């Protein structure tokens, strides 16, 4: 590095972020205003057009009640994008705070936290969520609660590990030598340097949340029929897989596309947020 500070490089957004961001932006717009995009009412039965293959009138075909699959896929964006955000925001925020405090404090707090992590990761995530939802009863809100109760642990574990690294660096000591409070050091100094992996994980987790929501929808524990939700739709189509594949396949593709959007965004963010030293 020369003696004069280097001129700032123009920020060039990584391509994955642009593509992923575009997919997510489109998904959000569709989710907010599904009626603008859907050609039919997603719940309107049409007994004159049962189980029709994709055509110009019904680009994704119709299901066994004559409902337009495209319209249902579009309306499902509203629920599935909600699931992506609501099922992950509480674990993200709560897990980040707990992880930051635990990682900074160390000692018995960390030991206790480690045991909680052990207890949670012993069970497969889906099994644990299904168990909690069956106790609380099916439905989206109960699913958010179930995911929130379990999911924060993963964020907290990531953040705690990062904070443990950061708190040993001199800038943390410089804060202490300045007489700053612990909370100021944790949340203003350490956390911005520790949070990137959690944000990237959050992106992946939103994709996983859609999958989880779909799985629970498929099992009848998440969104309830006749609501248009991708998992519910896939479940609806399972008896017609051999004869009317389009009922299940198009919602599945919507899940893939949205998941791709989240993953690409996560990759791009990881690059943009990388700490320069």
């Amino acid at each position, binding site marked *: *590095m*020369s*003696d004069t*500070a*280097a001129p*700032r490089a123009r920020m060039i957004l990584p391509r994955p972020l642009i593509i992923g961001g575009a997919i997510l932006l489109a998904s959000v717009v569709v989710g907010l205003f599904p009626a603008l995009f859907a050609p039919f009412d997603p719940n309107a039965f049409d007994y004159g057009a049962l189980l029709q293959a994709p055509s110009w009138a019904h680009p994704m075909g119709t299901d066994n009640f004559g409902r337009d699959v495209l319209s249902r896929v579009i309306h499902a964006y509203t629920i599935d994008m909600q699931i992506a955000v609501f099922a992950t925001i509480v674990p993200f925020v709560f897990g980040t705070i707990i992880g930051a405090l635990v990682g900074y404090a160390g000692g018995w707090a960390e030991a206790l936290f480690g045991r909680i992590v052990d207890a949670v990761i012993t069970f497969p995530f889906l099994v644990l969520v299904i168990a909690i939802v069956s106790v609380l009863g099916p439905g989206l809100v109960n699913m958010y609660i179930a995911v929130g109760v379990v999911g924060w642990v993963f964020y907290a574990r990531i953040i705690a590990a990062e904070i443990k690294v950061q708190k040993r*660096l*001199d*800038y943390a*000591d*410089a804060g*202490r*030598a*300045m*007489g*700053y409070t612990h909370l*100021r050091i944790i949340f*203003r*100094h350490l956390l*911005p*340097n520790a949070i990137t992996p959690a944000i990237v994980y959050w992106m992946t987790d939103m994709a996983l949340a859609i999958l989880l929501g779909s799985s629970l929808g498929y099992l009848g524990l998440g969104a309830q029929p006749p609501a248009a939700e991708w998992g519910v739709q896939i479940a609806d189509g399972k008896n017609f897989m051999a004869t009317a594949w389009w009922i299940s396949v198009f919602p599945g593709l919507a899940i893939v596309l949205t998941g791709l959007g989240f993953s690409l965004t996560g990759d791009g963010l990881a690059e943009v947020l990388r*700490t*320069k*030293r």
Partner: protein
Amino acid sequence: MTDAGMITVEGIGKRFALPQGVMSRLAGHPAPAVHALNGVSLQIRRGETLGIVGESGCGKSTLARCLVRLHDCDDGRILFEGQDIAGLEGPARRAFNRRVQMIFQDPFSSLNPRMKVRAILGEALSVHRMCPAADIPDRIAALLALVRLNPDAADRYPHEFSGGQRQRIGIARALAVEPEVLVADELVSALDVSVQAQVVNLLLDLQQRLNLTVVFVAHDLRLVRHISHRVAVMYLGKVVEIGATEDLFAAPRHPYTRALLDAAPELDPERRSRQVAARGELPSPINLPQGCLFHTRCPLALDRCRTERPELTDRGPQHQAACHLADFGAPSTETTA
């Protein structure tokens, strides 16, 4: 000692516990620990520069961190203007931290990479309410000028600066709260030699202008000789000799100091020392030697040195050494190995 010290360090000890296995604990073995400081005593006087030298691992940095209370001492105490700093809490502790500041060794980890220089300096100013909020931008510009950085440096991130520039930002941060004491831990050891002089001269200049007391921790003997009024030599977490810089460099009164000075590279081949003044490696700070800490490497060690640990005793005006050989290095009876 003529005037009372601004900071008085009284026999402080610091241990860092090592992990201990269950079997070892059941067998009743004492908990293993690194003995970083073993009874350090010294005084720091207002307005002076005290150099602290020693090999790597001798506890210099631990002492520096204890002085600003980044570590709490296990034994002994540190008095700041007569008050034990271990008892300071809340606002009193913050006030102490404002008056005794530290500059760190590594310019690449001592600045928060996610904060602009303006935020780093502004935070120090606002937390300690050094000036009205409206004056903060002017104060930041003044601080940057003080450490000879351009005003536009305020809106840059640390990674946009070189090592020497970052170290000057670190100095500006410490000076933002108008401290009376600066503890500089290996201030320039991470910098290129050409940049070292810039930063050291800046520190000396600031010391005179702001009447700072400086504790300068370093392993570079020539640098310490250049800038210090007094020098303390540390070995295995203990001060073995302390005195006015020229007295100590001209006539070291402890065999270890002699060894350190002899080990410094000499440019003139005629004057190259032929004798080895200290042999072997630094003993483990986990299992300290009995008696004098230096006896395992001392060419002059006596039986007494192996059993009894010497304390600092006067060797002249403002000159103390911790050695049983009271005559060592005395002008009249030059002792050689």
